[in-house]
């Protein structure tokens, strides 16, 4: 029998980026808030101090900061005709765990989506005809770029994003991204400085008629104090961002940017190692009464709350919705249902470049240290005769030179033996990678639902992922990879090794941790799980944050949009919901 806790105004499930943002917003509005985090408490100086943070084996390959699949995993298959099996070891995506979530070990790549990305279906039909979206279940977002702009800006100020605006209030700015939507303000900090690799790419891209600009970075180019009064340090280019925490307080993260503020609030409590099993509801199912959770001793608790916010990672939010029976579950075989629908990924290709005559020194790096072109992203280029929609940015992204992962050898060199060793010795310092980071558009056979066979440690059905890349995305990725190869040759490389998108989707090699969809937002309850304020259509005091809200994935890293949606939701709760609790959009 669950022990009943004292009721609070809001309970937040998961304490990463969006959990912390919602806690800050709701606490500042005077609400009593409890956050439940299933992982451990972790802070910078204890968990990833500079004295031992640069440890590739422990953090990357032994998964120190990642979800431990021994205790929590999901099952995976490529299509509904196959039997899904458990992901027994992390690979393709590296889910976070504990306080800070995946925000601890991200690169800090802070992107805004294009205005046209929020109208994926309408925009492409208008420009290219109905055939352009055939076979895809893409939808329009119920929010526009203009709706999110102030909230993107809030997140930039929170993180101290380093970059150069390309569009200020509609006026194109030299040195920035000319394709981006209008910004209301310049970046809070100037861009990072290029090392050799990004400098070579920027030069070659400009010479070939492209529009290079510095990657918007959550790695700070100078010391900074954010609007919450939290001080952050200047990045030292140590090259240990992605898959690592930052011991230097110079990578924006929940720990570095917001949690210290939230924890000072007297109306806030965080409970670690407290795993939520399900959302509880009134007998008619229309209101959430709170959540049931288990602590590490195995004891069960019920936390009553007037507002429930699911702020766990996208996959876990979808899992909790399905386990709680909220919303019609999606069946990838029939295409019916909504919770779990439009699960998408990110379509990645990598172009490795080698130089006989240049020392690149890739170990001097940072998570978002790159020169980028956006010429082939979204609808920034004419797709009329290409046979696909969507696109990718191409980035000379030098995040570091961790040698187990990043000792590259030119094409034709075997994976082991003397030839490998000699090539590794020669090219480790003379190579880097162009990242081709593309959109992922939804198709009917993909989705998330409950596994019929495998159960988790609490006896609940595991989440089941059915996913493969759509033909549209394969064409898109290859087209953009070809463009990256052309620019690579303009850099004067001695060799190029393209690592194109591989099909079927394979859970073994690391690709990206950008899994999205499943609790998508939309215009009506007939086409979506949540409304434009991240509010469940079925349960009006339930809000769902995260990339699960995306109807499909654009060609950018999702975090800034995830944060902007959380701020938009918090604003609606504060200014409208608290005055008149109920549906914020009339169905």
């Amino acid at each position, binding site marked *: 029998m669950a022990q009943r806790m004292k009721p609070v105004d809001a309970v937040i499930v998961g304490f990463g980026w969006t959990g912390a943002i919602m806690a800050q917003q709701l606490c500042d509005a005077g609400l009593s808030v409890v956050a439940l985090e299933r992982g451990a408490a972790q802070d910078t100086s204890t968990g990833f101090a500079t004295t031992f943070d640069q440890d590739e084996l422990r953090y990357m390959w032994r998964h120190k900061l990642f979800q431990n699949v021994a205790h929590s995993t999901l099952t995976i298959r490529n299509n509904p005709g196959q039997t899904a099996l458990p992901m027994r*070891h992390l690979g393709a995506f590296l889910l976070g765990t504990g306080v800070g979530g995946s925000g601890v070990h991200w690169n800090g790549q802070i992107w805004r989506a294009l205005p046209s990305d929020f109208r994926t279906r309408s925009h492409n039909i208008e420009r290219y005809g109905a055939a352009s979206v055939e076979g895809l279940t893409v939808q329009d977002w119920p929010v526009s770029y203009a709706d999110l702009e102030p909230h993107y800006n809030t997140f930039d100020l929170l993180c101290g994003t380093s970059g150069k605006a390309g569009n200020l209030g509609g006026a194109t700015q030299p040195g920035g991204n000319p394709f981006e939507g209008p910004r209301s303000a310049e970046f809070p900090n100037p861009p990072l400085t290029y090392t050799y690799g990004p400098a070579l790419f920027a030069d070659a891209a400009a010479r070939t008629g492209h529009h290079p600009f510095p990657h918007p970075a959550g790695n700070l180019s100078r010391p900074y104090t954010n609007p919450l009064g939290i001080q952050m340090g200047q990045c030292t280019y140590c090259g240990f961002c992605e898959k690592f925490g930052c011991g230097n307080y110079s990578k924006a993260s929940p720990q570095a940017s917001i949690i210290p503020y939230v924890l000072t609030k007297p109306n806030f409590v965080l409970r670690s190692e407290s795993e939520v099993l399900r959302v509880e509801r009134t007998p008619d199912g229309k209101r959430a009464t709170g959540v049931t959770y288990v602590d590490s001793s195995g004891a069960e608790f019920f936390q009553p709350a007037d507002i429930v916010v699911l702020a766990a990672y996208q996959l876990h939010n979808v899992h909790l919705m399905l386990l709680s029976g909220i919303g019609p579950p999606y069946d990838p075989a029939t295409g019916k249902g909504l919770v779990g629908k439009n699960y998408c990924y990110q379509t990645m290709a990598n172009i490795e470049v080698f130089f006989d005559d240049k020392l690149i020194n890739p170990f001097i790096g940072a998570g978002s240290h790159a020169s980028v072109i956006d010429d082939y992203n979204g609808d920034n280029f004419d797709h009329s005769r290409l046979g696909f929609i969507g696109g990718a940015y191409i980035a000379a992204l030098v995040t570091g030179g961790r040698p187990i992962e990043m000792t590259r050898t030119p094409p034709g060199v075997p994976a082991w033996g003397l030839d490998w060793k000699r090539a590794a010795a020669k090219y480790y310092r003379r190579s880097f990678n162009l990242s081709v980071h593309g959109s992922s558009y939804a198709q009917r056979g993909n989705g998330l639902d409950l596994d019929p066979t495998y159960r988790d440690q609490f006896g609940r059905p595991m989440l089941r992922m059915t996913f493969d890349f759509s033909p549209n995305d394969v064409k898109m990725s290859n087209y953009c990879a070809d463009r990256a190869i052309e620019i690579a040759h303009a850099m004067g490389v001695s060799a190029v090794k393209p690592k194109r998108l591989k099909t079927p989707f394979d859970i073994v090699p690391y690709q990206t941790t950008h899994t999205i969809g499943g609790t998508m937002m939309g215009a009506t309850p007939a086409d979506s799980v949540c409304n434009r304020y991240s509010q469940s259509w079925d349960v009006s005091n339930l809000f769902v944050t995260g990339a699960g809200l995306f109807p499909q994935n654009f060609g950018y890293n999702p975090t800034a949009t995830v944060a902007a949606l959380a701020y938009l939701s918090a604003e609606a709760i504060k200014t409208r919901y608290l005055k008149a609790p109920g549906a914020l959009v009339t169905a």
Partner: protein
Amino acid sequence: MTHADDPARGMIGRRQLFALGAAGALGAAARHDGMVGGTSERIAGTLPWADGQADAPDDAIRAGTAFLTTAERAFVTAAADRLIPPDPTGPSASQADVPDFIDRQLAGGFGHGEHYYLAGPWAKGLPSQGYQSRLTPAAYYRAAIAAVADHVGREHGGKAFADLAPTDQDAVLKALEAGKVDLGQVDAKQFFAMFLQNVKEGYFSDPLYGGNRDMAAWKMIGFPGAHYDYSEWVTRHGEPVPLAPVGLTGRPGWRKA
């Protein structure tokens, strides 16, 4: 509006909160990587933190724990030295103590499958579904090495892998890599991939884990190791960075055995 507090344990004063915070930090520091089941904490006011409790890598990783038998170690050493053979470019796998590294890894959390889901039911699965064995990595190594020994014995008149000529050793390894050898419950291709990965881990990881002796593998490729600050080198494009490599061991904040 109600207050966020803990009714189950009564109201907690501010002084008690700090005490709880300190206790929580001690609890967190006692956890090893990959463990769950630390004490659930009620956290307010600040994240638990206490001086000198940084979660540095566990000293047990460096202890002389061993998993491999003499025969298994002979295979690991011989095979690793074909993957990274000796030559003037840099050390071989065994010259870099890679077999020690692998032995300790198999004896520790990695070998125990600390980050593997191993519960059933089990099915063979598709290549895109990755590792589907019920065996821990250590047990997987044991089963694989025994099966390779049987295979080599049959093909080479009872000889052990370590006693074959290098060209024959390479032929065996290439057959494993291509999945052309039946190893029974072990998938040859998957075992080879795991072994190659572990060899490269031992070669290139921080020396505190037992491999990469004298940081010679880092010196060979020109990686300066666990440096904290490259700021002055950012704009010096194309210049050699003559910093001697550094490892983590002995740096401040280290938890002593």
